[in-house]
């Protein structure tokens, strides 16, 4: 059981750092930080006024048009795009949708998808996690902060928080539902084989 437990932890937590290392994307992170404001939600966009005016012109009442189409809504729209991507479980377990390619994003699968069950279980047992509330506040706070610009690669900062939740889910399931834990672990091991192999092969065509 201990071996299985360690294997589950290893398979769950190793994919994101491994994928980052294999893509070499950490190498240009300094460059990305240097260009932070160029990719921020406040960066000027030549198309923005055209889009805003095209929409605003449709309304009979200009004030009404301004309410939903102005510079602030445009910036808020960019913020929402980043924020919901950062808080989307599909981002972490499937690289968004399998047929979807997100511009300016690595589309990395950060955790093996069967591990989602551990994360869900962690939230189900949320009350038993001592620092749960603080971690959740930090997670959403950081997600909001990273949403101010292109979050790609920087989002790795969220990894420790998610890892704590995952570990909590694994621990709780192992003690409370050992049979279910074994079933999920077997499912995870079987599906991790192609997933990890792909992490290596995919990058060296």
């Amino acid at each position, binding site marked *: 059981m201990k071996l299985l437990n360690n294997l589950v932890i290893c398979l769950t937590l190793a994919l994101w750092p491994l994928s980052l290392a294999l893509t070499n994307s950490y190498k240009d992170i300094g460059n990305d930080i240097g260009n932070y404001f160029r990719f921020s939600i406040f960066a000027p966009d030549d198309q923005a006024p055209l889009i805003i005016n095209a929409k605003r012109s449709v309304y009979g009442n200009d004030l009404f048009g301004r309410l939903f189409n102005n510079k602030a809504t445009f910036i808020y729209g960019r913020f929402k795009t980043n924020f919901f991507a950062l808080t989307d479980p599909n981002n972490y377990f*499937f690289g968004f949708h399998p047929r979807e390619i997100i511009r300016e994003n690595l589309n990395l699968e950060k955790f093996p998808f069967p591990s989602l069950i551990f994360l869900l279980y962690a939230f189900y047992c949320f009350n038993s996690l001592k620092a749960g509330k603080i971690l959740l506040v930090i997670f959403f706070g950081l997600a909001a902060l990273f949403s101010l610009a292109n979050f790609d690669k920087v989002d790795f900062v969220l990894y420790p928080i998610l890892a704590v939740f995952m570990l909590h889910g694994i621990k709780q399931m192992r003690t409370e539902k050992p049979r279910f834990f074994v079933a999920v672990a077997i499912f995870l091991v079987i599906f991790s084989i*192609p997933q990890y192999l792909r992490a290596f092969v995919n990058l060296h065509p």
Partner: protein
Amino acid sequence: MKKFIPLILLLLITVLGLIIRFYRLGQAPAGLYLDEAAQGYNAYSILKTGKDEFGKALPIVFRSFADFKTPVYIYLIVPLIPIFDLTPFTVRFPSFFFSVLTLPLIYLLTRKLIPKPAPATALALLTSLILAISPWHTLFGRTNFECNVALFFLLLAVYSFYLALKKPPLLILSAFFFAITIPTYHSQRLIVPLLLLLLFVRYCRLLFSPSHRRFALAAFVFGLLLSLPTLSIMFTPGFLARAATLNIFTQAPSGHLSWYQGPLASLINARWYLTTKEFFALYLSYFSPRNLFLLGDYGPRSSFPDLATLFTWQYPFYLFGLYRLAIEKKLGELRFFMLALLLISPLPAAITRDPFTTIRALPLVIPLTFIVSLGLIRVYQLISPLLRKTALIVFGLVIVYSLVNLYSSVIVLNEHFRAPYWDYGWQRVVDRLNTLDPKLPVVIDNARAEPYSQILFFTKFNPEQYQRENFEVPLSEYYTNLNRNPVKNIGRITVRPINWEPDLIEEQYLVGDAIAISQQQISLNQMTLIEEITYPDNTPAYRVVLTNPKYQQSVRAISKRQGVK
């Protein structure tokens, strides 16, 4: 007086939902999509001749383009035509009607299932209110989509079932509604059996008890008899057409690395792995905040511009409500039902390849609405009593903002930017053709669109004559032969691709979109532009032109003399 307050509030919520769905029903979305027109005309044809456009008497599923449509919605339109005439309003009316009825129904169902110590009335009213203003539910309540009617029958069936636990004869009524739900929309073929199975497992003891046994058996037989027509065509290509073309199991799996031919190919490109992963990714996407609160449905007809399926302000309440639903066992039967519907509803959509389709997953709107409402109620209970009045005022303002947001997207932006997707303009084409020389033939181009249903619809063409003059497949092969005839004859109008060489030497009207009939073509062939019909944003939609055979003949004669082909 106090006991009437919930009823008054429910009435107000229903009226609000009615106004949201009724305002400019039939005019917004502008245009009439081909499926809407086809369903409307088939209902008209059934009314006039007892047969559909292909001459099939009372079909079990309706042939429609390269697809088959479920029958209930079409039969619901039939009695409306003598009352409202054949108009876009009429074909959208059943969806509107059942959408509004769903509001009090969800109130009754929530009240029925929630244990009494919980704030039952407030939660039920709030669920009804959130559903009334839901962009997701509103969209399908204003347009011709069968899924909305199916959702109503599903909820009614479940409500009758729960009533029948105390009054066993109602089991027969429940069976009737379950049986009707299945042929109302495709995805219900999966949802209804799964939900029935869950209910059966949960209540099998009671259903087999002496008080219920007779009625349970009668309900089963009655439901089976009602489902016999559907079961009789279950394995025909017509019935399976939709599932066969859309499901992920027969497609090439996503993520297949075709360039990798190494020794590990059988593992790396393992179909069991890729398809399972795709299924779970699709399934999870129906709970994804990114889809629910930001992107919405990618289809231009199943979403409103700048509006997702739920309002952004509902996001924290969605997360909190989801957590509360998972842990609050005291919600009893309501928790069971909402969790069951929450987990079952995305299944039909998750086995199809589209990333997030709100049509196929519509029943999900019910548990999601409930979850947001539960989140709101629980947050309200956490607020200090001193601040509750302020919270209520803020909530009221948020609802007003949501209504204004709905108006902005549903009426203003949708009409302007989405008109092409709703096949805007065919009514004006038909109106214009009616004013032209009736002796001249008309050719309507269908190279990029299928406008014949809209032409039939807006001309109210005699169905008997249409059935006589058109042939697609023998009636004995109605459900099995998927061949199509691309040429449609509607009196003097022929719907087919324009064939310029022969079409230009005959004096006739040609109708086509801006690609089929360009300005350059009109001047080159000296045709007369009768009318250019434009979309609300003033871009050309369709052009009606009169050919110039004399000019063509002279040009061709000169070309022949000069030996130019």
